[in-house]
C-alpha cells in the first residue's frame, strides 16, 4: 500500500518536474513564462500526432513497429512542437519587448486551443466511439520497465519500476542544477536573469541567452506533457485531461525556490499531495475536493515565508518579469 502510494506519487509528479525544470531554466533568464501550461499541451499533442502517424504507417502489424523509432519520433515531435512555442514566446518578449504576463497567457490560450483542436480532430479521424485516442502500442514502448525490477521487492518497486522518461526527468533536473551552479554558462544565465544590464556590460549576449534558455525550458516542459500521455495515461489522449498541471508546475518552481534539485523532491511531494486523498480512509468526496487545494496552499506558504525571511539565495531572479532594453537604464 505504502509502496504503491509512493510509486503513484512519483508517476503524478514527473510531468510537474518536467514543467518546473523547464520553467526554472526560463525564469533564470528573467522571463516569467506563464505559457508553460499551453506549451505542455502542445508538447503532448505533438508527440501524440507523431506517434499516431507512425502507428498508422505501421498498419495493424505490431511486430513491424521498431521500438527505437516508436520512442524517438514522438520524443522529437514533442521537443520540436514545444520549442516552436518557446520561440514564439521569446520572439514576442525578447525581440518585440512585449509584456511577459500577457504574452504568456496568450500562449497558454493558444497552446491549450491547439492541443484540444488537434486532439479533437484526430479523435474524429479514428472514427471510434470513445472521445479519446489510444496509442497503447507506443505507450507500451514508453513504459517498458527494467526486467529485474520486480525481483527486488519494495526497493525495485520504488526506485526501478518506472518508465524511462521518469529517469530522464530526474537526470534533466540534476544536469540543470549542475549547469546552473557549476558552469560558466550557468553563471552567465543567472547574471542575465539577475541584472541584464550588468551582464550586457560584461559582454554576455543577453538576447541569445534569453532565447536559448526559453526554448530549452519549453522543450523540457513539453516532454512533461508527453510523459503524461504516454506513461501516466497509458497512451490515451482525451481533451482537457491534462488539466491544470501546468499551473501546478509553475507553483512548484516557487516551492523549490528556483532550484531544480529541490524540484525533484518537490514534484514527488506534490504528486503525493495530489494523491493523498485517495489513500486516506473514510474521506468523503467533499473533503477530497478540499485536499486538492493542498499543493497551492503549501506553495503560498512557501512564497510568503521566503519573502519574509529575505534570504538572498531564496529569492526569485531579480529582474524576473522585466523587459530589458539596452538603451534604457
Amino acid at each position, binding site marked *: 500500500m505504502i509502496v504503491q502510494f509512493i510509486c503513484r506519487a512519483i508517476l503524478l509528479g514527473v510531468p510537474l518536474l518536467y514543467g518546473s525544470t523547464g520553467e526554472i531554466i526560463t525564469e533564470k533568464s528573467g522571463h*516569467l513564462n*506563464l505559457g508553460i501550461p499551453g506549451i505542455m499541451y502542445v508538447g503532448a499533442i505533438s508527440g501524440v500526432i507523431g506517434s499516431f502517424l507512425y502507428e498508422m504507417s505501421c498498419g495493424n502489424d505490431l511486430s513491424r513497429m521498431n521500438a527505437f523509432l516508436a520512442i524517438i519520433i514522438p520524443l522529437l515531435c514533442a521537443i520540436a512542437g514545444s520549442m516552436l512555442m518557446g520561440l*514564439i514566446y521569446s520572439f*514576442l518578449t525578447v*525581440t*518585440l*519587448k*512585449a*509584456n511577459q*504576463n*500577457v*504574452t504568456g*497567457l*496568450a*500562449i*497558454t*490560450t*493558444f*497552446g*491549450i*486551443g*491547439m*492541443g*484540444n*483542436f488537434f*486532439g*479533437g*480532430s484526430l479523435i*474524429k479521424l479514428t472514427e471510434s466511439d470513445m472521445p479519446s485516442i489510444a496509442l497503447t502500442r507506443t505507450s507500451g514502448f514508453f513504459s517498458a520497465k527494467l526486467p529485474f525490477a520486480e525481483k527486488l521487492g519494495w526497493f525495485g518497486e520504488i526506485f526501478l519500476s518506472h518508465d524511462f522518461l521518469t529517469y530522464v526527468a530526474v537526470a534533466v533536473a540534476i544536469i540543470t542544477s549542475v549547469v546552473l551552479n557549476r558552469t560558466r*554558462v550557468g553563471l552567465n544565465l543567472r547574471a542575465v536573469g539577475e541584472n541584464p544590464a550588468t551582464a550586457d556590460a*560584461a*559582454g*554576455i549576449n543577453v538576447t541569445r541567452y534569453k532565447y536559448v534558455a526559453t526554448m530549452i525550458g519549453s522543450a523540457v516542459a513539453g516532454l512533461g506533457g508527453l510523459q503524461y500521455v504516454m506513461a501516466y495515461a497509458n497512451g490515451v489522449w482525451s*481533451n482537457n485531461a491534462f488539466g*491544470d498541471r501546468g*499551473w501546478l508546475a*509553475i*507553483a512548484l518552481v*516557487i516551492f523549490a525556490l528556483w532550484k531544480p534539485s529541490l524540484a525533484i523532491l518537490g514534484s514527488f511531494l506534490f504528486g503525493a499531495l495530489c494523491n493523498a486523498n485517495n489513500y486516506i480512509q473514510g474521506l468523503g*468526496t*467533499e*473533503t477530497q*475536493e*478540499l485536499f*486538492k*487545494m493542498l499543493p*497551492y*496552499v503549501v*506553495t*503560498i506558504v512557501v*512564497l*510568503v515565508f521566503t*519573502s*519574509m525571511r529575505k534570504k538572498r539565495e531564496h529569492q*526569485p531572479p531579480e529582474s*524576473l*518579469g522585466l523587459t530589458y*532594453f539596452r*538603451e*534604457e537604464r
Partner: protein
Amino acid sequence: MADKTMVKHHHEPLFHVAKRDDMIWWKAWLIRCAAILLSVFVMSLVSMALTEKTLFETLEIMYRGVFGRIEEGSTVMLWKYLQQIAILLCLALALTPAFKMKFWNCGAEGQALIGGLGAMVVMIELGPKLPYGVLMVVIVVVSILAGAIWGLIPAVFKAFFNTNETLFTLMMNYIATQIIAYYVYIKGGGSNVIQPVEFGNFPKIGDNKYLINILIVAILTVVMYLYLRYSKQGYEISVVGESQNTARYIGINVKKVIIRTMCISGALCGVAGLLLVSGTDHTIRTDTVGGQGFTAIMMSWLGQFNPFIMVIMTALIIFLKLGAGKVADTCRLNASFADIFIGVVILCVVGCEFFIRYTIKFRHRKKEGNV
C-alpha cells in the same frame, strides 16, 4: 565560453532599435487596427482552408453567430453578446487599477469565483428568510466583501513583505476553485450541480434578463474612467505604478495605496461574480467564470488601461470568440478553434505594440555610438 576574452571585429549592425517619442494616437491605432485585421484575415484564411468555404461565407457565418437574425427582429443573440461583453469588461475594469499600479493581479478568476460564492451562500441560506429588498442588499455587500478579501490577502503580503503578487494571485485562483468544488458538492447533494435558486435574483428590466447586468457594467466603466483620470486616488495609483520611490518621496503611503487599490480590484471582481451568479446563472459551478479572468488580464493590457478602449477590445474579442465558435460549429471543426483564433489575434496585437513604442533605425553613413 571563451568569447569574453576574444576580441571580435564588430561590423556596425545593419539597424538598431530605439525608443520612439509618443506616437500620434491615430497612427498608433492605425497600427493596432492593421495588426488585428491582419490576424483576423490570416485566421479566416486558415479556416477557409479547413472548411472549404470562401472568405465571405466565413465572415458571414461569424456575423450570424454573433448577431443572429437581427434584421428579422430577433435580438436574442445580440443580448447574449452584450452580456458576455459586460462580464469580461467588468473583470478587465477590475484589474485595471491594480495593473496601473504595476501590481500584476492574475487572480481575477478566483476573486470573481469567491464573490460569486458569497452571493450564492446568501441566496441559499438567507434567501427564503429575508424580504427581497434586504436580501439583495445583503447579497451585494457579501459578494463585494468576499471578492475584496480575496484580493486583499496577496496585497497585504505584497505591501509588507514584497511577496511576488503574480504567483500569489495565481495560486489563489485554484484555492478558490477547490472551495467552490467543495461547496457545490455539499449543497448539490452529491450530484455536483446546484439547482438554480429562485431567491435573490436580479430584477428583470422589462422582460430582458441581461439588461441590468449590462447597465451596471456601463456605469462602472464611466466611474472607473473618472476614478483613474480625475480622482486623487487615481493619481496616487499612477504615481506608485511609475515609481515607488517617487511616490514615497512626495509623501504617498505606498503600502496604503497598494492595499486600498487591491481591495477595489478584488471588490470589482466580486461584482463580476455577483453578476454571474445572482444576475445570470442563479447557481455556481467551478467553471462559472470559465477562464475569463485570464482573458480579462489581456483585455486590460490591450485596452491601455483606458476603460473606453477596453469596451472596444472586449467587444472585438467576444465577437471573435462567438464568431469562431460558430464557424467551428457549422463546419464541424473542433470547438477549440475559437481559442486558437483568439490566441493568434492577441499575440499579434501584443506584438504590434513594439512598432508603436520603438522604431528601427537603419545604419547611417555617419559613424554613431553603437559599437
